[in-house]
């Protein structure tokens, strides 16, 4: 005897696609095997940098939205964020990392980003 279970959907293929997509990067661990230790460490470091970069960007957007920035400040913040993004792109290419790899699963806290 088992539970009288129902699994039903009007769009099975769509759900499969979306669920798979939502799991991209989930559960991946730092790859720190001896042969690929540089990439594993780079992934960890770049993930943390990316987190900080995104926090900085969000803070900047809030300040732009609030209208409290001068033209000079807008120029300076824009340049900083642009250079940060360029540098991140460069480092990702060097270590062969994709955007979706720069994430960590924090168990009950969910994903880092």
């Amino acid at each position, binding site marked *: *005897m*088992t*539970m*009288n*279970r*129902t*699994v*039903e*959907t*009007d*769009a099975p293929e*769509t*759900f499969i696609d*979306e*669920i798979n*997509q*939502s*799991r991209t990067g*989930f559960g991946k661990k730092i790859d720190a095997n001896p042969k690929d230790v540089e990439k594993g460490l780079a992934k960890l470091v770049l993930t943390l940098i990316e987190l900080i970069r995104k926090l900085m*960007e*969000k803070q*900047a*957007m809030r300040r*732009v*939205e*609030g*209208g409290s920035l001068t*033209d000079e400040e*807008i*120029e*300076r*913040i*824009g*340049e900083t*964020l*642009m250079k940060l*993004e360029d540098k991140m792109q460069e480092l990702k290419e060097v270590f062969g990392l994709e955007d979706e790899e720069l994430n960590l*699963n924090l*168990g*009950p*806290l*969910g*994903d880092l980003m």
Partner: protein
Amino acid sequence: MTAFDSARFGLSQHPPKHVEQGRTAGSSGAYETSRGMKIYIYGIVDSNDGIDESVYGLKGAGVYNIPYRDIGVVASDLNGQIGDVTQDSAVEHERIVEKLMINCAVLPVKFRTVFASREDVLSMMENYYNDFRANLDRLRDKVEFGIKIIWPGEAIKARLDIDYNKDNASVNPAGPDLDSRLADSPAKRFLMKAFKNYKIDKEFKEKADGCIAVVDRLFSRVAVEKRLEKLGTDNLLLSAVYLVDKNRQHDFREAFEHTRRVHCGLKYLFSGPWPPYNFVSLPRRSQPLRDGSWSGSACDKAPQPEGVPRGNAI
């Protein structure tokens, strides 16, 4: 009918002879599995009675109860490595948990949870006994339902993008002259693009929150607890699990049918009832790992075939 299916918790009064009744973590001369044998566990139950030997679990091994005080761990011996237990065995694991649920309160344990020895199991029970007891009381006669909802997220985002470009002033509270202030250098253009994405993303999330609130209200009337995860992707609006009293399963089903009728522009995936995998709540404490084959908390979320939220409740 096996003794497992019989009336009293499906658990016999007399344990199989290989199960030592009433042993505690502190007792000497602990039960040892044979060399290389590990202990695979299915769930924590609110009974310390033994199980009939005719119940078979993973790899055909006999299922038994390891008692600790007034509760127990339902387990079977595992000869080999946890790596040998493939995803195909998830159905077997689930079958055992469901059998236990017929007459017991059960805390389902994550698929592929293995302990090196009976001593380790009892040590875990000693550490977590109060938490297990509280969870068993809370989850008695409860089941879990899963709801996933897809909305036309990409189309909504595209619409927001058009609206932003068409009528920046109405979307952008910073005023219509912001663009001209931002657009006269590469750095400013970069910031303008980031700001546009920020605004669209913000409005998109507000729309999602509004839609989720409408749908969730209907389910929450029936459920006793819930875990919601929004926007797994732009289109996957909601992945939710609801804890429902066994005797209100029909009401929950009705709530789903009603939601589907009223909000017909959405796509739904409904599943259940499941054992309450997502509602076992334990503090995270480190556990000794003797063979490296077990990780995570002692009793954790197990995978559901249709996928479950990973925290981030909203």
